[in-house]
């Protein structure tokens, strides 16, 4: 077991001018579960493959423990990887698949069988040990891929969207299984996904990437409560945070006719006269009294039982239309066509520089 360190690691594909991964600095502590998350093409898989040694590192270094592995071939890195499509060997049985690395490492037959059996028990794969991958269901194949990694007892687990080929229900189940298994084994894990829910539920810490650049690293709570920029704010959380630009007022920002307080020092730090404000759908107060904040016309209310989501739009002075989502009570809520007025809950306003997108206020708190 070991820590993992990316030290300004960069990957530039030949023929491209923009790095796919741009000098990433990232530390993963021993035994930690780190999730790399971002939209497709953000470089998260490339980062993982750089750590695996499947992708060249053009600049910077990668360490596993204290060992610089930047130029070490994959086979000598002592890492195991779970691939998105599992990459099981089709001509080998489940047991052979799981024991292959040990066989290559020259582990004797008895020990091999013992370790495979141990992992199979852990993953409920015992009845399937003599089957070929083709005769397994998607979930079972996924577990074999996990088993292949576990049997190795590697320093680091790498997982590249291992759940994306499963159906929704199985995905949620397997998600918790993987997370609890990782905690039990205590092996440092780097997990790649594009699904922010997966990231929030599984990771000890989450690293958000966009266009090859690391946006923010932190605990799920950190990322949710205090996104460092507009991108992270919009990416983490579902439904996504409402983000729109608003005029600064004396001592705050305008929410329709109301002014929401914001410390003067944050306002002074902003470029220009507008700032981008963000409010999560679950952090708004919806009122039907005119004048109580931003005027919203309700387009649709989705009822989900206990809660409902109000989809509406505000029209700003310039005639621009901004879509707004708000969580409302599932039983008592406004209806389509009505007008409602919206204010952030105290302490839950996120303010970002309109030009740079960088966060202005410290915590999600009003001045």
């Amino acid at each position, binding site marked *: 077991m070991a820590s993992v360190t990316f030290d300004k690691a960069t990957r530039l594909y030949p023929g491209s001018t923009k790095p796919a991964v741009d000098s990433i600095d990232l530390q993963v502590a021993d035994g930690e579960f780190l999730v790399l998350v971002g939209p497709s093409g953000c470089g998260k898989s490339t980062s993982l493959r750089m750590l695996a040694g499947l992708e060249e590192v053009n600049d910077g270094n990668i360490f596993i423990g204290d060992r610089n592995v930047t130029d070490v071939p994959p086979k000598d890195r002592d890492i195991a990887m779970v691939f998105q499509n599992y990459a099981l060997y089709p001509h080998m049985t489940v047991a052979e698949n799981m024991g292959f690395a040990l066989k290559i490492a020259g582990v004797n037959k008895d020990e091999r069988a013992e370790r495979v059996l141990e992992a199979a028990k852990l993953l409920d794969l015992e009845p399937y040990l003599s089957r*070929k991958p083709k005769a397994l269901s998607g979930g079972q194949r996924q577990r074999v891929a996990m088993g292949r990694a576990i049997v190795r007892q590697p320093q680091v687990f790498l997982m590249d969207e291992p759940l994306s080929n499963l159906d929704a229900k199985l995905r949620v189940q397997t998600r918790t299984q993987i997370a609890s298994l990782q905690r039990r084994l205590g092996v440092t894990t780097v997990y790649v996904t594009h699904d922010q829910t997966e990231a929030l539920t599984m990771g000890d810490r989450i690293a958000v990437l966009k266009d090859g650049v690391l946006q923010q690293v932190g605990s799920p709570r950190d990322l949710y409560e205090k996104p460092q920029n507009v991108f992270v704010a919009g990416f983490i959380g579902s439904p996504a945070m409402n983000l729109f630009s608003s005029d600064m007022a004396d001592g705050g920002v305008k929410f329709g006719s109301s002014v929401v307080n914001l410390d003067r020092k944050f306002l002074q730090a902003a470029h220009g006269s507008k700032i981008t404000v963000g409010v999560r759908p679950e952090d708004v107060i919806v009122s039907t009294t005119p004048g109580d904040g931003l005027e919203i016309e309700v387009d649709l209310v989705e009822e989900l039982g206990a809660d409902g989501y109000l989809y509406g739009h505000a029209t700003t002075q310039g005639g621009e239309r901004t879509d707004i989502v708000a969580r409302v009570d599932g039983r008592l809520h406004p209806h389509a066509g009505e007008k409602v007025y919206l204010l952030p809950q105290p302490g839950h306003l996120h303010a970002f520089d309109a030009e740079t997108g960088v966060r202005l206020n410290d915590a999600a708190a009003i001045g």
Partner: protein
Amino acid sequence: MTTADLINKIVQVAAALAIFAAVIGLILFLIDKAPKRGRDGFQLVAFLAPALLLLGIGLIYPAVRTSIAAFADNTGNFIGLDNFVWMFTQPDALRTLANTVVWVVLVPLVSTIIGLAYAVFIDKARGERIFKALVFMPMAISFVGASIIWRFVYEYRPEGREQIGALNQILVWFGAEPVLWLQSDPINTLLLIVVMIWVQTGFAMVVLSAAIKGVPTEQLEAAQLDGTNAWQRFRNVTVPGIRGSLVVVVTTISIATLKVFDIVQTMTAGNFGTSVVANEMYNQAFRSQAPGRGSALALILFIMVLPIVIYNVRILRQQREIR
């Protein structure tokens, strides 16, 4: 041929096509009008009959005739197993069988190994297409053409004269005497085998190269992380991944080799101890006026091909369980 002839021919072809279309149309029309009850059976027969008829005339009837002829003498009298006794006792006939075995062992083995190695080495290399084309080109040459090319390579001129064969010229450069290659038993058989390998390697290479590209990259990467070196990856991931294609290549080449006739006929006409079964079959049937012996050889050839075909089918069925 005059222009009028040409036009005449074109009209004939067009007429033939029209008649063909009309007949097919009529059959389809009649099938469509078939009574509801038993329509499936009717359609089955109507569609299968033409193909079955042609198969019967072209394949089954000759096969049966050949099988009967194998047990008869030149005049058609039944003589039991005499033709086969001749085949397995006469030194010449035995030599033919032995040569065939050498061909069937060496050609598929060597061309597949070379083709596979070549396909692996040029995979994803720069100029892969050109490298492939170079090796594939001989496939486009007929066996007779290839044989003529190689006969030049093996060509002999007496010592002192200017050598036009590449092989002898090389010998002369090293100060050795030129050799009458195609008449030197047993090396001449090997030299003929080289021609077949030269032609078949391209086939093996192209098929295997495509198969190699079909092995999922992730499997190779997974194997890389599992600690394998390049050879272990090749043995444990690539080869099992292309097993189906390997079997197809080996069996196809084996069958082609069993039937080889043109190369031997062109190069030595089966003389100097180079004859093979297919060649001898032709010689007996059409030159020595011994159709019985020729038929017996044909039958043996068929029996030799059979296990290869069965093996092929079995492996392909196994592969289906994996994929």
